[in-house]
Structures are given as C-alpha cells and as structure tokens.
C-alpha cells in the first residue's frame, strides 16, 4: 500500500466533530490569530449590540433586514471556523490512524545486565530493551545488537517484512512495529511523547501548527488589505453624509465584511493543514509546515542513482559470444559459473540464461563441482568440474587467466568489452580454460517510468542531479538513458554536501533524499531533506521529512504537494480579491439609492431592492467559504507545466473567474431572497 486512503471529504464523523469544534473557535482569543476573521467577529458583535439597543428603543423599521445581516455575519465566522475544524478533523483522523500503532505494550528493559518487564511508556532515552520475535518494538530506537525481520505494516501499510540490523544504514526501528523473526537489542532514542510519531500526530492535528513563513507574509497582505477597506468604510460615512445619506452601522459593516478578504482569510489555515494531510496520505511525515512550503520552492533535486533512478542492482541483459561460440554455450558456462554466486548480479545471470535458453540451473550436488568464490585479489569467480575450469570476471583478469592456460585472446573481445563500457554497462568476460567464450553484458536497469517523471520535473523548472559512485562513462550512459538533467560521477558522501552548498550559494533551494548515517550532514544542509524510514536514526533526525515507505522516488511527490499547497493559497487569494469587484456593484448603488438615485445605473445585476442587494452580497460572501472548502482541502489540481502556462491557466480560472462568478452568484441569491420576501 503506497497511499493511505484519504477520508471521504464529507465523512460524517469528521463533519460532526468539526461542527462542534467550530463553536469553540468563536473564542476571540482564538480568532485574534486571524486578523481578517477577527474583524468580522468584532463587527458582527457590534452590529448585534446595535440591534439590541435599537430593539430597546423601539426602532424596528429595518429590523428584519438588519437581523439577517447580523446572522450572516456570524455565519461567515462560523463557516471559516468550520473550514479550519474540518481540516483539523481530517488531520486528526490521520493521526488516529498513526496512533493506533501505539497500543499499550510491555518492554523488556535491560538494566545492569538484568532483564525486567516495564510498560513502554516508562522508557526513557538511552534505555536498552530486547525485542524478540512476535513482540512489538516499544519505542523509536537504534538496533545495537542483532538482526531481525520487522513488520512495519502498522506504520507504512506495507506488509512485506524488512530487515533491521545493528550498524550500517538499516538500524533504525520505529515504535509500534513488530519483530517477526530473531531478536534484537534496541537502544531507545526518544522519550515518550517525543517520538517522531508523536511529533507528527501533533502536527497533523494542527495543535502544534505554527504559521509558515509564506503564510505569515500572506497574512500581512490580508491584514493590510483589511486596513485599507476599513479606511474606505470609515471615510465613506462622512462622504455619504455630505450627500445627505446617513449610513447605518449594519450596512457599513456589510460592505466592510464583503470587501475584506474573508474567503482566503477563512480558508488559509485549512489549506496549510490540508497540505500536511496530503503528505501523510503519501506516507510522508513532515516535521514542519515550513518544509512543505520549501518543497514547492525547490530548484534542485539530488537523487541517488541506486534505488531512485535504477533498480538496486546491475542485471545481466545479454550474452555476446566470441570466436564462433554458440550463444547457448556461453550462457550455459556463465550459468554454471554463477550457480554459487549469491550476489544479485550472479543471480541475474542464472535467470537470464534460464529465460533466454531454457537452461535450468543444475543441482549443485549432482555435478560435484568445486566453486571458486570471488575475491578481491583474483577479481573473478567460477567453477571447476569435469576438468573444466570456467571463470567469469573483469576482462583484464580473464585475459590473463586465458593466457596462463595457453589460450589466445581475440581482438574481437576487446572491442566488445569496450563497446559495453561505452554504453555504461559492465562487461563480464567468461572463459573456459584457455578458451574465451564471450561477454556477459551487465547493466543498470532504469526504473520504469522514470523518464516521464524527469520530464515532469523539468517541465516544472526543476534541475535534477544524479549522484553516483560510478565512473563518468557509466554515469553518462545512465544519465542519458534515464533523462536526468545532470549527473555527478565518482561521488563520495562528501560530494553531496558540497553540491548542496554550491547550489545554495547560488540562491537555490535543494532537496535530497537519503538514508545512511553519512547522508545525515547533507540531509541537514538540504532545504528539504527526506529521510527514509528504513534508514538510520541519524538520518531521520537530520532530515525535515520522513518517508515511511522508504521509496526514494517519493521526493517528486513531495515537491508536487508543496507546489500544490502554494498554488491553492495563491488561487484563493486571487479569487478572493477579484470577488470584490462584483460586491461593489451590488452594494454601492444600494447604499446611496436615496441620496443619489442616479447610481442605480451601477446596479448592473438588476438586484431587486437595496436591502436584498446588500443581503445577497453578504450571503454570497459567507457561502463562498463553504463552497470552497473542498478546494481548500483537496488542493487545486496541479499539472506539471512551465510557470508561464500554469499562471495563465490559473489567472483565467481564479482571476477572471473570480471577477465573474460573484456577479452570477449574487444575482441568483438575490432572486431567492426576493422570491422568499426576505428583504
């Protein structure tokens, strides 16, 4: 399972919870965090107060109208509260999924050499526990002794067990996962409540959410616009008075609330929470909202060749015989030489021979063979049996072997070897005693669909850099085949850090994905560092995101989610501001119909009465928040196109659409209001 199923949009339990929670959010101390909605709440309260005063004084001329205005102002606040509560509710649902993994477990604590059983919640950092087959790992930690198969389905949804062992890059274990074979000693690395699962639960629930940098900047814009519109409304009172019109507070407030960007103001935090939520659906846990935002801004992606661009290992893809040898003969010799070779390369040779020539690996026992394992000195391996000595290995070594046995090396062989090298493959020469048989072409197999992914990324304007320890020739060939933008060959772990620093010095943002301890400095340096859950604890601490699936291509989804989050924010901001044009045409003529009846000419929507015009604008302004909740939670659809194309498209939809939609919406609401004789 690569993706968690998101909860249905209007999942009843979430809606119910959100309805209740949105009531708590009326608390002015909570509203004050959002300047736009705070203004709505304060003015709604003021209008309500005025209404009560009017009621006492017996001034009930326009009471029905004003009560409705007040109600819809409160609804506007309620709808914004509901949007936020919905996003939080969905986050909570995700968090509950995560939380299910942490059932109350017992831990076998080792202290002073003795083992004792304690509750998992009492474990502290640096405690050492032993976990045996069938037991649940009590907390986040590092394997310090042993090797075990661990089922991480509880976290990743992936049921195939993974190997966790001490030392190396597969040493981190997560609380809540289950050991299914052997036993391991685990050093606990997080106090209860501080595990990354705990931190994540907090983040998706929204409780620990802090505003991200771009959200802060956007809030400043929205607050600034709010102040501008307050100036407009405050000054309108004396302006109107000059023309003989006395504007009532409810009407002025109606204008103000319609003008200030309530749509984006009400949905802003929901968009942010939903962005985190979408990451979790992809099994990526972000440690901060800032990281999600940075993901959208990434300019350069550093990708490890192995595992990201290519399948993990080289595979035999071809047998090329020399000197009139039958291909099947070469294949058989190669297969024999590889029978005892348990490396993935060796196995791939056996499989290729079987697939191409129907050769079944013979039982080792029945041929009484003597297998020669690979060694760093000889740089070849093979098998001796029936007086034959078959070897496979690097071309220079095999050439020497052939000559030692009195054979000749044909020139043809060298050219084949060279050709394979140029294609980025690895040539393995096979010889039978003095007789060279041919060459096995081993090559990196590019992951399916990776080319298309690179095209998407490049269309988005990202630079992709492949990092590999291979020689430049091999690297270039793989780069060409996979379509990656750039590559760095013969890279050491330090290379990554250097590349990241170089890119950052040019002002670029860099994302990388890594797992090993030696990746940790680079993960920490990168603007978006995604650690694989299967990696070391050091890597997980250094990165600002963790991929629970440990799938290196996940980095691309992360970038897309980041971009989608930013686009959604921008689209709703643009839409919200563009909406104001229509509201003016509804409210201004209605406000001044008595003093300046000529302004009726601006009532281009032909709204029924001044009261219904104002009421309809306020209702539209409130309902649009509800109507846009799905968009805020799901995000604007994102297609990997160049910035210019995306911008044109979104400007048409949310800019031009934002101007037109409210004209239609307000007119329709006005027809309903008029039909029901509400105003």
């Amino acid at each position, binding site marked *: 399972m690569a993706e968690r199923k998101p909860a249905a949009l209007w999942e009843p339990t979430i809606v119910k919870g959100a309805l209740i929670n949105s009531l708590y959010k009326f608390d002015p101390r909570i509203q004050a965090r959002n300047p736009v909605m705070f203004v709505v709440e304060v003015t709604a309260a003021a209008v309500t107060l005025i209404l009560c005063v009017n009621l006492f004084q017996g001034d009930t001329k326009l009471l029905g109208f004003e009560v409705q205005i007040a109600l819809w102002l409160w609804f506007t606040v309620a709808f914004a509260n509901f949007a936020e509560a919905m996003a939080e509710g969905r986050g909570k649902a995700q968090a509950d999924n995560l939380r299910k993994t942490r059932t109350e477990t017992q831990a076998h604590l080792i202290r002073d050499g003795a083992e004792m059983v304690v509750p998992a919640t009492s474990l502290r950092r640096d405690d050492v526990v032993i976990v045996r087959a069938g037991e649940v790992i009590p907390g986040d930690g590092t394997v310090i002794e042993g090797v075990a198969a661990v089922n991480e389905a509880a976290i990743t949804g992936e049921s195939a067990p993974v190997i966790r062992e001490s030392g190396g890059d597969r040493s981190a274990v997560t609380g809540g996962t289950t050991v299914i074979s052997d036993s391991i000693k685990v050093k606990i690395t997080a106090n209860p409540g501080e595990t990354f699962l705990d931190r994540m639960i907090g983040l998706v629930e929204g409780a620990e959410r802090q505003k991200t940098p771009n959200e802060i900047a956007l809030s400043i814009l929205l607050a*600034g616009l709010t102040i*501008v519109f307050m*100036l407009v409304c405050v000054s309108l009172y004396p*302006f109107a008075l000059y023309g003989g019109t006395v504007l009532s507070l409810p009407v002025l407030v109606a204008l103000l609330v319609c003008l200030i960007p309530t749509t984006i103001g009400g949905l802003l935090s929901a968009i942010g929470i939903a962005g985190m939520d979408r990451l979790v659906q992809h099994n990526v846990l972000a440690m901060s909202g800032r990281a999600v935002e940075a993901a959208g801004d990434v300019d350069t992606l550093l990708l490890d060749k192995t595992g990201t661009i290519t399948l993990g290992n080289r595979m035999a893809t071809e047998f090329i015989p020399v000197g009139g040898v039958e291909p099947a003969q070469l294949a058989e010799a190669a297969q024999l030489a590889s029978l005892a070779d348990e490396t993935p390369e060796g196995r791939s040779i056996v499989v290729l021979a079987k697939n191409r020539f129907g050769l079944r690996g013979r039982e080792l026992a029945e041929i009484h063979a003597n297998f020669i394992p690979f060694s760093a000195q000889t740089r070849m391996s093979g098998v001796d049996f029936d007086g034959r000595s078959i070897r496979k290995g690097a071309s220079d070594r095999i050439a020497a072997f052939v000559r030692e046995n009195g054979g000749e090396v044909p020139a043809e062989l060298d050219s084949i070897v060279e050709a394979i090298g140029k294609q980025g493959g690895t040539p393995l020469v096979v010889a039978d005693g003095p007789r060279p048989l041919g060459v096995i072409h081993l090559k990196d197999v590019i992951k399916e669909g990776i080319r298309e992914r690179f095209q998407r990324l490049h269309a988005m304007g990202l630079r992709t850099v492949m990092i590999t320890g291979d020689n430049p020739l091999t690297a270039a060939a793989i780069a060409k085949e996979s379509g990656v933008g750039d590559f760095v060959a013969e890279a050491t772990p330090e290379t990554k850090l250097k590349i990241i620093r170089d890119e950052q010095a040019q002002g670029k943002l860099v994302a990388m994905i890594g797992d090993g301890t030696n990746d940790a400095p680079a993960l920490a340096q990168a603007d978006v560092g995604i650690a694989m859950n299967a990696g070391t604890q050091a890597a997980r601490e250094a990165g600002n995101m963790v991929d629970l699936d440990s799938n290196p291509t996940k980095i691309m989804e992360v970038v897309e989610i980041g971009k989608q989050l930013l686009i959604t924010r*921008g689209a709703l901001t643009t839409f919200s501001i563009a909406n104001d044009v229509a509201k003016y045409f509804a409210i201004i003529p209605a406000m001044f119909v008595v003093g300046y009846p*000529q*302004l009726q000419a601006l009532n281009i929507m032909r709204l029924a009465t001044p009261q219904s015009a104002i009421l309809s604008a306020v209702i539209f302004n409130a309902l649009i928040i509800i109507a846009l909740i799905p968009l805020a939670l799901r995000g604007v659809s994102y297609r990997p196109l160049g*910035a210019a194309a995306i911008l044109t498209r979104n400007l048409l939809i949310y800019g031009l659409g934002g101007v037109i939609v409210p004209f239609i919406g307000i007119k329709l609401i006005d027809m309903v209001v008029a039909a029901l004789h509400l105003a």
Partner: protein
Amino acid sequence: MFENAALQIGLFIALVTAISVPLGLYMARVFAGEPTILDPALRPLERVIYRVCGVHPEAEQNWVEYAVSMLLFSMAGMLVLYALERLQQFLPFNPQHLGAVAPDLAFNTAASFTTNTNWQAYSGETTMSYLTQMAGLAFHNFVSAAAGIAVAIAVIRGFVRRSARIIGNFWVDLVRATLWVLLPICAILTLMLVWQGVPENLSPYVRAKTVEGATQVIAQGPVASQEAIKELGTNGGGFFNANSAHPYENPTPLTNLLEVLAIFSIGAALTHTFGAMAGDRRQGWALFVTMALLFVLGAAVATWSEQSGNPQFATLGIDTHASALQSGGNMEGKEVRFGIVDSALFATVTTDTSCGAVNSMHDSLTPLGGLVPLLNMQIGEIIFGGVGSGLYGMLVMAVLAVFIAGLMVGRTPEYLGKKIEAREMKLAMLFILIFPALILLPAGIAVATKAGLAGISNPGPHGFTQILYAFTEAAANNGSAFAGLNANTLFYNVTLGAVMLFGRFMMMIPVLALAGSLAEKKAVPPSAGTFPTNGAIFVVLLTGVILIVAALTFFPADALGPIVEQLAMLRHQLY
C-alpha cells in the same frame, strides 16, 4: 475626429518610446559612474562640489543612511525656502515690492515644492518675488526632482544587487541627477521654448494700454528656464497662475508637445534604466508597456468624454460637434489653440505623472473626463509617474502583483529572483496603506467640518470632487489644481501641506527599506518554474492588480463624486 485623436496620442507615445530608451540607458551609465559624453565638462565641476561639501563619493550608504541623508537634505531645503518666502521683502530681485508670504501659505508652499508637488495655493505673479521664484522655487524644482531620481536609483540598486548592504550614495546620486540629467535637458528645452516665444528676462512687469483704453499689467520673468524644469522634473508649479494655459508658458501646439514629452521622458526612461541595471532589458519593457497601456486607456477615455461634451448644450441648441471650424466637445476651461485632444492629453499626462501642470482647467472637465485625472492620481502616480517616484511606486505594485498571483505558479513569490517574504510584504503594504489613508481620512474630515466645506465653490457631488481631488493630488504629490476649491485658507494650507509631506517621505522611507531588505538577499537564478516578470502575462497581471487595487480603494469615493455627477449630467440633472 477619432483619427485625429488616435494620430496625436499614437505619435506622442511613439515619441515617448523613442526618447525614453536612449535616455534610460544613458541614465544607467550615469548612475553606474560609467563614462558618458558629458564627463569632460561635468567631472571637474562634480569634483569641486564634492570637495566643497565634504562628500566622499566612493563611500556608499546602507538604506538607513541613504534615507537620513535624503531627509536632512529635504528638511534643510524646506527651511531655506520658508525663510526666503517670509523675508522676500528685504531681499533683492523684487521689482514689484511683494510683501512677506503669510506663515501658513509659506509652510504650504515650502512643503509643496520640497515634495515635488508644486501645489500652489497662491498666484505666482502677485505673491512671489523673482528671487523666491528662482532661488527658492526653481531650486527645489531641480533638487526635489533630483532627489526623486536618486531614491529611484537607490531602490533599483536594492532590487538588483545581491547579498549587499549598501545601495549607493545619496549625495552622489543627487549631484549626478542634477548635472548629468536635469540641467543639460533643461538647457536644450529652454532654448526651444524661447524660440517659440516664451520670455526669459528679469524685467519689471509691462504696463500696456489696451484697444479699449484700459491699462493691462503684463507679467514678465525668467519663464522659459522655469518652464523647462517644471515639466521635466514633473514639478508642475507654474510661473503664472494660469500655468501652462498661459500663453507665456505654453504659447504654441509645438511647445505643448514639447512639454508633455518632457513630463513623461524621465519617468519613462527610468523603466529602461531599471531594465539595464537588472541585466534584463525586458524587465524594464514590462513596466514600460504596463505604464503605456494605462496611459492610453486614460487618454482615450478623457478624450472621448471631452469630445462627447455635455448633453445639456445640445438641448440648448448649441452645436458641440467637431467640424472643420471648431473642435467641438466640451471647450469650457480649455485653450482654443490646444483644442480637445491636446487638452485631454495634457490632463492625462500631467496626472499620470506627479507633474500637475495644467493647460486647461480640470474643474471644467466633464465628470468622466475629470475622473481620469483623479483616478490616475489614485492609482498612485505610477503611470510613468513622478520622476523617480513613478518607478519605485510601480516596483512596489510589481512586488504586490507578484505576491498575490505569484503563488499560483507553485513557488513562494519572487521578483528578479528575490524572495518576497514577510518583511518585504510588511514594507510594501505600509507603502500601499499610507496612500489611501492620506486621502480618505483628511477628505472625510474636510467634508465633515465647516472649515473644509468653506472652500468648495460648487454644491453637490462636484464640490465633493473638489475636496477629494485636492487631497488626492496632495498625497500623490501631483499639485494640479482642480481649481474651484479655495485652498488658501488656514485649514487647507496646513492639512494639504502635511499630507504632501507624508505623501512624499512616509512613502519614500518604506520603499527604501524595502530596497535595503531586497539588496541583502541572494537571487535565485530563473528557471522554467520561475514566475516570469518580463512578458505579456505579467503586463496583464500587473495592469489588473493596479486597476483592481485602486478601484477597490477609491470606487466608493469616486462613485459619490465624478461618477454620480456623470450619471446626473447624462440625465440632465443639475445641483
């Protein structure tokens, strides 16, 4: 008629384009300290000025130092001007023996000329001595323009420099703007004006006997030189009360063309200076085209509205159609030698920029025709704009446009590779906020107080427009008079003077801070994923944002002034 207007406006914008490109590139060289053709003549003079004033030209300033220098310089200049006005009766070059200027008027005038507004609550020929005109007002015409250019150049440096703290030296930019840019062009323009009949003398006023035997006093003075800087520096303060409608200031259609060209030239050229300094000329063109679009839009509406005239006349049997014998349309307040198109063009140009010179009386424009100048100023004088202030105002709008819509490409907003973050947004919003506050709040007070209402000369919406216009032109540092408003009162002298000062300096400081903040940033090199700010989409977006922001802010006020008045006029309603 349409052909005539299209031809004139088209020719005009073509000339603006032709002048602005070389001038802009020249200015980029001047302010980068690169060699120019005028160096042999001006370098020695420049060195002397620095030595005398103790300026170290190589020492650049950070934004705070730059702002402080600019403020100190402006404050000192304002005080000197105030003193000159108050003491002119004791000083030479006062052949008419004009007395001291009243304190409130002197304050208003000092504020007005220091801020490049050139709002004149007085008649020049009956209030100011030649010394005050030349050493006070004309001096400020040069240095307030030069200060505007200097700040714009510093702001450009902030936008284009990377990881830098310094944005230039105010004193050097001021001197170079004056010597290399303003003076040489003024010299040429003055000669051309003199050739066309504009006086340039220090003679006492001439008394002439008219045909009917009455005596007429004809004012004289060093008009041509003042006229040149009045237009070029987008100052707009006329030597005479009638400003560029006066035959001594603007005698022929040719001088009229020269004057409108002079008004736009530096503002338009600065866009290309920006493009050149940014290392991407298309960035400059994007701003230029946006400005040109908004200009053409305004000029077209104003011309159309003036040519359509007032339907009341038709009902009275007056022929207002254009023909071979008359320009038709609404000729009230216009000079016959300019006609409809040149008057509408001048009104548009003078309010697109912060010039405020007039060759027709804006009070007499049709309501819709008068809405164009008003809206031009409410947009913030960024359609080519005041020298310097137009460009930096436009850059703030570009930052805003990038911020609002830039997120829609899926990156946090950036302009010229610089990330627009909370600090930049705070400063940009401050800039955008101050402007309507300076217009709407005092106008609100004026219409609610006796002192404010005392100034208006027409009842109904037109009177409201007069007040709204006055505070708009003051905040925008335009200085054009809608006329009709009696502004030489204590109330208006003080409020308008204060609004002018705030409208200049309270907007310069945030924009300099914005430049300082951007200068410190690294620039992200552009990629296919970068928001493009040098193409057609950006022009459309920027135009849209400018219009929507201005419309949203001022629509209610304008609706109660020119809009309701236009609608009333169409229905033959009078107030």
